[in-house]
């Protein structure tokens, strides 16, 4: 019948195009420049939209939406709020600063702010980010309608196809590679499969990633530490290098993927019951990094997805393993699509749907110089007299504990600085709020 023949022809052309233009280049890590052209057009369109909005809307409402929170923050650090408080010139009014900060925290605190999506300065033609903007002009609405059609009817099917192909290739490829005996060929092949499939998956999200400082890319036998915004982080990082994942065994599709990829190269999966036993977890991770041939472990020490406007203090467990830590900072550009997964609001499927109907996922990845636990504070103990036995052990333990927490804090501060977020420095006799600027 003509109808089905036509449909069949369209489908096969479609698949050939996808294969030729997207899949093959991914396998070789080559880019044809199609996504670059798409991004250029997108940027121009959004710039035009911004100009139209700014013309149409009175200045104030645009400025208000630029704030990240609901209260106007007085950003003066504590030293300004107090009258030279160094234990000398205390005044009755010093209590004002802390009471104000306390009440501000009650009205709105940083942590809650981090768990809801970042508000945009200007609208990016997605309905979901349209909180403050009213009807401006017919032309803008037309462009928006066009955008909806493009996103839902053209981009979404393409992306879903790609994601489907990517995941199936991953599962099949790793299962096949897993049949081989352990050898350097196997590791090479498994890396190839991982890289190709992750690149396909990233293209299925229209991802544009810029890597900086590739010389600091995590090496084998180390630990890679990154800030966590969404499950996509894993794909973003794996596009540029293979990592050993750490996580809980899950059911469903995730479980299938987990079981498949662990056949090709050693990832570290824990049962739910094992996760509670911290010593077991630490022991297994230590064993993994002791083997220099194994891939670096990827850990997200924040413990949960944060909305990419700051970095939460890290949980301690990640740092007790030792080894060389390679920090990585990931910053998403919210203009093209919100990558943050608010797991209380959306489940995985609706989250993926939202991501696949955004314009694109644009992010920057900075590799930072490696740090070790041992290199920290090693000098300071030299002057002490000799202790032996129990006392020495306790001192060592205390030392290690100190080093771990200092490393954790230093690492957190490094990532904060890199990403240009305000830093909340913890109390050490005085409590202060400072803003570290710039991307160093």
């Amino acid at each position, binding site marked *: 019948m003509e109808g089905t023949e036509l449909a069949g022809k369209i489908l096969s052309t479609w698949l050939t195009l996808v294969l030729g233009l997207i899949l093959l280049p991914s396998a070789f890590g080559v880019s044809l420049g199609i996504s670059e052209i798409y991004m250029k057009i997108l940027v121009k369109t959004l710039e035009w939209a911004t100009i139209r909005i700014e013309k149409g809307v009175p200045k104030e409402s645009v400025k*208000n939406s630029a*704030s990240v*929170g*609901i*209260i*106007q923050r007085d950003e003066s650090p504590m030293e300004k*709020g107090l009258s030279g*408080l*160094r*234990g*000398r010139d*205390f*005044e*009755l*009014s*010093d*209590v*004002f*600063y*802390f*009471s*104000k*900060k*306390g*009440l*501000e*925290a*009650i*009205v*709105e*605190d*940083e*942590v*809650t702010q981090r768990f809801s999506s970042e508000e945009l300065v200007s609208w990016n033609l997605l309905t979901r980010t*349209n*909180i*403050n*903007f*009213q009807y401006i002009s017919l032309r803008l609405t037309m462009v928006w309608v066009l955008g909806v059609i493009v996103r839902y009817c053209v981009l979404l099917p393409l992306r879903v196809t790609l994601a489907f192909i990517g995941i199936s290739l991953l599962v099949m490829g790793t299962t096949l590679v897993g049949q081989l005996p352990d050898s350097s060929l196997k590791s090479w092949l498994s890396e190839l499969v991982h890289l190709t499939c992750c690149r396909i998956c990233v293209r299925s999200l229209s991802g544009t990633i810029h890597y900086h400082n590739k010389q600091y890319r995590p090496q084998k036998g180390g630990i890679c530490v990154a800030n966590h915004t969404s499950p996509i982080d894993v794909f973003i990082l794996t596009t540029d290098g293979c990592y050993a994942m750490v996580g809980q065994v899950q059911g469903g599709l995730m479980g299938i993927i987990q079981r498949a990829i662990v056949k090709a190269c050693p990832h570290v999966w824990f049962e739910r019951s094992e996760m509670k036993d911290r010593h077991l977890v630490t022991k297994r991770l230590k064993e993994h990094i002791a083997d220099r041939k194994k891939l670096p472990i990827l850990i997200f020490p924040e413990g949960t997805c944060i909305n990419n406007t700051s970095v939460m203090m890290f949980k301690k467990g990640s740092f007790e393993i030792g080894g060389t830590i390679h920090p990585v900072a990931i910053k998403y550009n919210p203009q093209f699509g919100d990558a943050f997964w608010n797991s209380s609001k959306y489940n995985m499927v609706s989250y993926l749907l939202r991501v696949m109907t955004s314009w694109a996922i644009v992010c920057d990845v900075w590799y930072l110089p490696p740090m070790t636990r041992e290199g920290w504070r090693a000098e300071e103990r030299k002057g002490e007299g000799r202790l032996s036995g129990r006392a020495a052990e306790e001192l060592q333990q205390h030392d290690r504990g100190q080093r771990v927490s200092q490393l954790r804090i230093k690492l957190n501060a490094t990532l904060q600085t890199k990403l240009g977020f305000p830093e*909340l420095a*913890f*109390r050490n*006799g*005085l*409590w202060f709020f400072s803003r570290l600027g710039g991307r160093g």
Partner: protein
Amino acid sequence: MGSRSSHAALIPDEDSLRRETGFSQASLLRLYHRFRALDTNKKGYLSRMDLQQIGALAVNPLGDRIIDSFFPDGSLQVDFPDFVRVLAHFRPADDEDAGLRDPREPEPLNSRMNKLRFAFQLYDLDRDGKISRHEMLQVLRLMVGVQVTEEQLESIAERTVQEADEDGDGAVSFLEFAKSLEKMDIEQKMSIRILK
């Protein structure tokens, strides 16, 4: 976009609350959502634990005392109207001239005197209307931390009480407190502006 008026129906006694606290409808709505967000078990009121969960408050040296100000007279729950009444102390002063206010109406919650009263009760733990040297010392200990010795703390407490104390009873009453701060810009230091 978004019709705000339909949400206002969520807040009970919204009109009288607005008049009493002076918050705008939009601000009240924002605060109501915040109240609901803090109320973890959807009880309809806040307990001490709910406020203690706030990280930034936990590291605030006066955190406990601020929480106490929401639970006067040993109560264990604070509902939305009381929550907003405390926050109303930090509302920035209205632009209209104070002289235009009807003197028969009760003083607005965010007047200078009421802001000072709020600060005063952060010091005055036993609510006897005076800040004794002992209470001053306790606050100092909270705010100054570990870098200062006990003797230094005591001498600072002594000096501060003496400077403010006018009638020589060794404690600072509310009026003495207010007088010692008469030149201070309370407005700017104790105001939180809620956007929109």
